[in-house]
């Protein structure tokens, strides 16, 4: 079809549609012209005018039929009907605003919940990365436990030597990049200001096909061993930190210790390969100085060579892995070598990016999606109920129209149009609801230093999803009422009561269904709520209230490692004198802080097991409120030269040191086989603390004395208990540190917050499932109320008769409530059975209770039963108050 022709056709159709009257007039004129000319011809041949007119009209075969045919030729009858039906439907909604608002709001909540969760899933798991040919990207992941040593970054998979070996050997990828996440401190003094950073291989930007908006990006030549480093910054950082200045190239950003020159800016919208994260500064891998064989920090992504499939590439990598492991094995003792050499490899589709966030949230989100789907089912049932009531009310009208020859199809179309209009308005409102809901979620799963950024824009996927859900819902709630309404015959139309009763059966079934689904949702919500409560009330072994954690960063050049022990001692003394500080101590890590260190424990030359390790200074246990149950705390006796001492927790003592732990000895092996391990004498036993994960049962922990560490790190983490508020404590400590040295930087957090942040997933599930459960309950109660009111109205005459025959008010009340009880009871029984069968699907997300928790089920049933009876009470009272005389007179 040529463009000209297409344009002409579209123009004509539009004209027929929107200027139908003018088109009709033209038709008229054209035909009349023809008829008049014909008449003239006939008259010219001697016919009289009337005869001529009759003949001419007969020849054309009836003006109106012709016009109708021409209208059909325009092929717009279907659209015209649709427009007419939509207008009609719209008028009817406006006429019944109560119905319209209830319907649209129910849908907005139901569809909105679904759209919101879909938006999150879409942004996290479905949407391809905004880079060149994202579908060709594949992540390389190692399997098996063989990685001991240092772990940094969220996507730690391989060491630098492993990455280099893969690059050297592999054939399947056109290129293969590596990256790791980090943070750079933008502040040069005072409080730390972190910006998310990336270490990237030289081919990173080139492989992803990213073009700079200013300067140039990191190229392979920039990533050479021993490099000084160049920085690429994100568009967002360019705007926020540098005001978008044109001479950005050549400015510097603080790197690690030394300022690094900026060479270019990435385009807006580019966030790297990790979904859910953004970066401000990217530096080449070489600038990190990391190259150890036992440092796990890199994620690697390859771009498949043309002609290679992911399966072929995986087979190829499985063939390479043992050679790679052989050539990169760290300086491990025999016990670590073996697992390292036998590690496997797998390829994972990375078209939508790599994301630890996705790994932890995909399942919760899918469960929330199912929950949202059930909420929508309840909303749809409500609408079906409302429409059924209307259908019954309009049965007379339809019966008459059918009797007069209206086609059933035409009536169906009209009724379904109304449903679709409601769905369309509901979907539009749903998008607004979804925006609010989905925007509120990333902050819920972010921590203070680990912000989640998800692009939640409404794209075509989200729009299409909402549209499909909207239409499907419209058909779901519109079909039964439409069929029912249009099945009416003249006969049925006259005997209205029986038709109403038939509709009522469906409506009662819908209420039972709603009750069943609501029970499932309430039960699920309670399971997640109790899981969160269980976690939140766990004893962490720490009195975390009011504890401020200060991470203090000392400039390395000013505090060389040999002078640190003395310098730190002096600084610690000064900080202890800050007014309001009750106690202050230093710790390698705080409970549930996210860092960890562990090692093998050797007693009498025998490996007895593993233990977590923390390194703390004197006063740590007192500060955190963890009692020492035996022995003593670290003190001045424990210096760099004195015999190494350790405090162990009760779990450690029970596991390894039976019969009085204090005074016993154990050894921690060195990283290397050829060096002897370090022997410790236990001087104290502390009560149990949590270590890395709040769900752990009493992890074994041993505590070293930081005062015995001859080369402390330039970063110190203080835990501080004070009589001040957190903000005041931070201010006082900050002022004291600035007085000591303005180049010291510090970051504060609250131990309380850290603990909460380790339960983000549970908190999200608890909140959202509780909210969805509440919405479901509200919708179901509205539905129940509507049906009970309607039932009472339908049975008005019958109830009047009963009352006239002497039934007491309480008897009628009991009758109505008993009826409601049956409806709700059926739903609850079905819902409870389903909930108990289906709940094992969420078992892995629960803590401290079984998926069939009887208490949760009991609470769910009780609350549903209670609210149902309250909702039914009002119409039931109305029934009891029916005046028999007036009820009977009406009939």
């Amino acid at each position: 079809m040529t463009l000209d022709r297409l344009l002409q056709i579209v123009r004509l159709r539009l004209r027929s549609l929107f200027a139908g009257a003018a088109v009709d007039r033209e038709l008229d004129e054209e035909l009349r012209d023809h008829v008049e000319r014909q008449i003239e011809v006939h008259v010219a041949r001697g016919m009289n005018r009337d005869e001529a007119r009759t003949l001419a009209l007969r020849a054309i075969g009836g003006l109106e039929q012709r016009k109708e045919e021409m209208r059909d030729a325009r092929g717009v009858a279907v659209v015209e009907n649709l427009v007419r039906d939509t207008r009609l439907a719209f008028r009817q909604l406006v006429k019944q605003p109560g119905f319209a608002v209830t319907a649209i709001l129910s849908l907005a909540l139901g569809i909105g919940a679904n759209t919101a969760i879909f938006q999150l899933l879409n942004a996290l798991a479905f949407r391809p990365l905004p880079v060149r040919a994202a579908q060709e990207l594949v992540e390389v992941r190692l399997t098996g436990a063989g990685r001991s040593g240092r772990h940094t970054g969220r996507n730690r998979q391989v060491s630098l030597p492993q990455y280099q070996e893969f690059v050297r050997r592999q054939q399947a990828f056109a290129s293969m990049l590596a990256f790791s996440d980090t943070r750079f401190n933008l502040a040069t003094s005072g409080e730390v200001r972190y910006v998310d950073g990336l270490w990237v291989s030289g081919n990173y930007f080139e492989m992803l096909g990213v073009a700079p908006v200013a300067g140039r990006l990191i190229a392979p030549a920039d990533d050479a061993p021993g490099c000084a480093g160049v920085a690429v910054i994100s568009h967002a950082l360019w705007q926020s930190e540098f005001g978008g200045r044109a001479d950005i190239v050549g400015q510097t950003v603080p790197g690690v210790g030394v300022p690094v020159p900026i060479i270019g800016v990435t385009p807006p919208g580019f966030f790297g390969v990790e979904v859910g994260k953004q970066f401000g500064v990217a530096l080449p891998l070489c600038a990190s100085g990391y190259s150890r064989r036992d440092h796990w920090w890199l994620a690697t992504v390859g771009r498949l060579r043309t002609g290679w499939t992911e399966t072929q590439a995986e087979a190829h990598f499985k063939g390479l892995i043992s050679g790679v492991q052989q050539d990169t094995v760290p300086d491990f003792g025999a016990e670590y070598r073996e697992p390292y050499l036998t590690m496997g490899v797998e390829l994972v589709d990375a078209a939508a990016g790599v994301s630890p966030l996705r790994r932890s949230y995909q399942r919760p989100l899918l469960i929330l999606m199912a929950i949202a789907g059930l909420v929508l089912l309840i909303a749809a049932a409500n609408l079906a109920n409302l429409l059924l009531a209307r259908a019954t009310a309009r049965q007379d009208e339809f019966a008459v129209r059918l009797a007069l020859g209206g086609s059933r199809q035409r009536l169906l179309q009209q009724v379904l149009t109304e449903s679709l209009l409601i769905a369309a308005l509901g979907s539009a409102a749903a998008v607004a609801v979804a925006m609010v809901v989905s925007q509120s979620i990333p902050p819920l799963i972010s921590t203070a230093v680990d912000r989640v950024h998800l692009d939640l824009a409404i794209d075509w996927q989200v729009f299409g999803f909402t549209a499909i859900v909207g239409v499907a819902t419209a058909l779901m709630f519109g079909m039964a009422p439409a069929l029912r309404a249009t099945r009416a015959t003249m006969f049925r139309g006259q005997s209205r009561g029986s038709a109403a009763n038939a509709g009522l059966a469906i409506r009662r079934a819908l209420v039972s269904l709603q009750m069943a689904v609501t029970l499932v949702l309430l039960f699920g919500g309670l399971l997640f709520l109790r899981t969160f409560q269980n976690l939140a009330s766990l004893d962490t072994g720490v009195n975390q209230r009011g504890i401020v954690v200060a991470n203090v960063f000392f400039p390395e050049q000013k505090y060389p490692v040999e002078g640190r022990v003395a310098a730190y001692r002096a600084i610690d003394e000064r900080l202890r004198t800050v007014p309001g500080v009750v106690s202050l101590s230093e710790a390698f890590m705080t409970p549930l802080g996210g860092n960890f260190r562990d090692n093998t424990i050797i007693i009498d030359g025998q490996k007895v097991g593993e233990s977590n390790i923390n390194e703390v200074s004197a006063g740590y246990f007192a500060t955190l409120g963890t009692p020492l149950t035996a022995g003593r705390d670290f003190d001045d006796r424990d210096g760099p030269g004195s015999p190494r001492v350790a405090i162990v927790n009760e779990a450690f003592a029970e596991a390894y040191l039976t019969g009085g732990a204090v005074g016993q000895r154990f050894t921690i092996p060195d990283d290397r086989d050829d060096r002897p391990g370090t022997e410790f004498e236990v001087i104290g036993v502390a009560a149990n603390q949590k270590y890395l994960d709040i769900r752990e049962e009493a992890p074994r922990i041993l505590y070293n004395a930081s005062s015995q560490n001859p080369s402390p790190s330039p970063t110190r983490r203080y835990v501080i208990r004070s009589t001040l508020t957190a903000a005041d404590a931070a201010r006082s400590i900050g002022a004291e540190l600035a007085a000591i040295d303005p180049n010291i930087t510090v970051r504060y957090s609250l131990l309380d917050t850290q603990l909460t942040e380790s339960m983000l997933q549970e908190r999200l599930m608890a909140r959202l499932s509780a909210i969805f459960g509440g919405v479901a309950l509200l919708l179901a109660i509205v539905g129940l109320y509507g049906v009970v009111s309607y039932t009472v109205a339908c049975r008005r005459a019958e109830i009047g008769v009963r009352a006239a025959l002497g039934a007491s008010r309480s008897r009628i009340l009991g009758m109505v409530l008993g009826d409601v009880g049956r409806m709700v009871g059926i739903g609850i029984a079905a819902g409870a059975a389903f909930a108990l069968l289906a709940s094992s699907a969420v078992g892995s997300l629960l803590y401290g209770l079984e998926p069939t928790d009887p208490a949760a089920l009991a609470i769910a049933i009780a609350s549903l039963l209670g609210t149902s009876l309250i909702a039914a009470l009002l119409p039931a009272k109305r029934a009891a108050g029916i005046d028999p005389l007036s009820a009977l007179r009406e009939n």
Partner: protein
Amino acid sequence: MSRPLDLVQGTLDLLILKMLALEPMHGWAISQRLKQMSGDVLQVSDGSLYPALHKLEQQGWIEAEWKPTENNRRAKFYTLTRSGKKQLARETESWSRLAGAISSVVALPEV
């Protein structure tokens, strides 16, 4: 509408396109010219002409414009479009094939 009429309708489209390929015309003129040219052989009712014109316009083969006529009236003048020309060529071609095929069948010697 019954099948034989469809066939006539199809042929009518071809005739109208051919007519308009000669010169732009209004409905009345087309009907007169058709009568003139086909004489008794083809009976084209006035009734089917206008819907056919309309359909052709909707399909984009012809376009219409309101213009004053020789006797100072307003009439809708139809013109063949570019794609209409191509359509005419196509229809002429298939008509010739059909006519040829039928004649050759009809011309077969009978035994």
